[in-house]
């Protein structure tokens, strides 16, 4: 498959913007500017960037608690995302959700979920709604290796299969739950084999190779739109800790270092240059653009007002 150059550039831009966002978010934590927590996706940027580039603008996504890359890659305004992270009134969720509950319904992002596996049945419902209303779109459901051990994963895949719904299940296998390695949480190596239990196709690809992710997601989407659900497993690695509380006691520095060598961002930058898509200079421009987007977002967020306590009871009920 020949991936269009503009898609390649979009994916790189989203990956480098995501990386900048995560690095800024971590810096803000260390400066004591954040009330709350966050889950960073450094090392996993190719998964969201590849999938979101492969789907169509009308397609919907349900994101995970580690979803900054998913939100950015689905085209959300980084200003309102950063403002939400800092709990401001201008945040996309008016400061009510924080970065674990980012949603941007206008951009087709129906929300990140703080409950591991909680979003999987909901994505199936959105796909049911899509089918019943005969809308030309699919629903993408992101979740992790840990969520694939939840009952909701199994119930939802079965239901989607029985009803042949247009939903693409994307399992981001970053090797760990909070601290438990997949080798201890399940007795299989390839999570995609779980699809067979429910009569739908499954496939695993290298989640650090954004071109492979894009191609697999593109093929999966083509299947889903007519053939029903598909399980796509993206094998990657969470280089950063689970959250800000992670002291890294469950894995070796050597292991983390070995995955840093497989950094999806650096690998993709080299790919772009080798294939004549971008020059080294153009890659640097995109990196700088990512930093600039995030710095502007921070300025927007920091200059925004806190939500008024008068709004605390708003939006409980419609």
């Amino acid at each position, binding site marked *: 498959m020949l991936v269009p150059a503009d898609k390649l550039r979009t994916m790189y831009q989203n990956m480098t913007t995501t990386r900048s966002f995560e690095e800024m978010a971590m810096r803000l934590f260390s400066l004591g500017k954040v009330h709350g927590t966050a889950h960073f996706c450094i090392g996993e940027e190719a998964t969201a960037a590849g999938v979101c580039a492969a789907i169509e603008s009308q397609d*919907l996504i*349900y994101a995970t608690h580690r979803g900054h890359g998913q939100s950015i890659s689905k085209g959300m305004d980084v200003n309102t995302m950063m403002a939400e992270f800092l709990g401001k009134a201008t*945040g*996309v*969720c*008016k*400061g*009510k*959700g924080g970065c674990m*509950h980012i*949603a*941007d*319904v*206008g951009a087709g992002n*129906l*929300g990140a*979920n*703080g*409950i591991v596996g*909680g*979003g*999987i*049945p*909901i*994505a*199936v*419902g*959105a*796909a*049911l*709604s*899509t089918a*019943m*209303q005969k809308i030309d779109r699919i*629903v993408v459901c992101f979740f992790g290796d840990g969520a694939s051990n939840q*009952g*909701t994963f199994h*119930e*939802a895949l*079965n*239901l989607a299969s*029985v*009803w042949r719904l247009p939903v693409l299940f994307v399992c981001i296998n970053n090797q760990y739950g909070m601290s438990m390695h997949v080798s201890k949480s399940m007795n299989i190596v390839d999570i995609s084999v779980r699809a067979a239990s429910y009569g739908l196709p499954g496939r695993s690809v290298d989640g650090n190779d954004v071109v492979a992710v894009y191609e697999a997601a593109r093929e999966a989407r083509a299947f889903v739109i007519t053939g029903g659900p598909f399980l796509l497993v993206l094998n990657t690695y969470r280089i950063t800790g689970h959250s800000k509380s992670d002291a890294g006691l469950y894995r070796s520095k050597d292991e983390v270092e070995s995955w840093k060598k497989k950094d999806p961002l650096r690998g993709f930058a080299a790919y772009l240059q080798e294939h004549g898509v971008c020059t080294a200079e153009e890659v640097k421009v995109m990196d700088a653009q990512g930093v600039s987007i995030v710095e502007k977002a921070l300025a927007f967020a920091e200059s925004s007002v806190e939500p008024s306590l008068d709004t605390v009871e*708003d*939006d*409980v*009920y*419609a």
Partner: protein
Amino acid sequence: MQEITYAQAVKDAMCEEMRRDPRVFLLGEDVGPYGGAFGVTRGMIDEFGPERVRDTPISEAAITGAAVGAAMTGMRPIVEIMFSDFITIAMDQLVNQAAKARYQFGGQTSVPMVLRTPEGCGTGAAAQHSQSVEAWVLNVAGLKVVAPATPADAKGLLKASIRDDNPVVFLEQKLLYRTKGEVPEGEHIVPLGEADVKRRGEDLTIVTYGRMVGRCLEVADGLAVEGIDVEVVDLRSLKPLDTTAIIASAKKTGHVLVVHEACQFGGFGGEIAATITDSEAFYYLDVPVRRLGGLDVPIPYNKTLEAGVVPTPERIAAAARSLVQ
């Protein structure tokens, strides 16, 4: 006025709303040709077809979650959970997902769905098929909770619930399914949040809902012979709660008994009692508000034991007498 059963009223409400609004559909276990465990949906698949009356696998979390996702994207699903006890399996989808989606996303979305489920004991189904679960869901911001006591209220409240833009937990009283009552012909809607004084009286207020409404009305008839004039306030919807009606009746009679089938400990009766004592009605009370709820035990199988777990007519009457004498 037509006289129909409570089950028929529930079905009529669904059918009318499904005819009116193509976004409304039903999903649940065995709701299709089987007609639901209590026969409520019998025949609906013949009119609406398997697309809109969807039989599901036994997967309460997935069914409820699917309703949440469908509701967030333009449909208005009705979920039938076969027994209210089974909402435990769907609790994350109900409590963390349906109830919170709107708030945590800053009002960007809404979840217009109804979760219908039969609750209560009296069928000999024992501990896992007989509970009254309202206290579990009343403590969750973002949910509405309804418990109709008559066919007319069942129909009118269900139609209002289906048209509501929020997740509504609709607690059908399974022992009432076969009871009959008059239901107005044509469009009949009962707004959520309005209690109904089912019997007017001067001496004592009984605040109740669900299956206990009928029992309290019978007790009230008996007490009338003894010269005790009882007012029976049927809450109908528990959240939103018609505090105005509760307070007004408490002020009028100065004696209040709260009756519900669910466990008294940690039950909704405490909230009703506090609604009165936190208000100006407190100064009108001649005696403290008294609660009468279910015993703090799982529902037992044996018929005599089961009947003794919930407020009996004798216990309700005794509690009422003790308040006014």
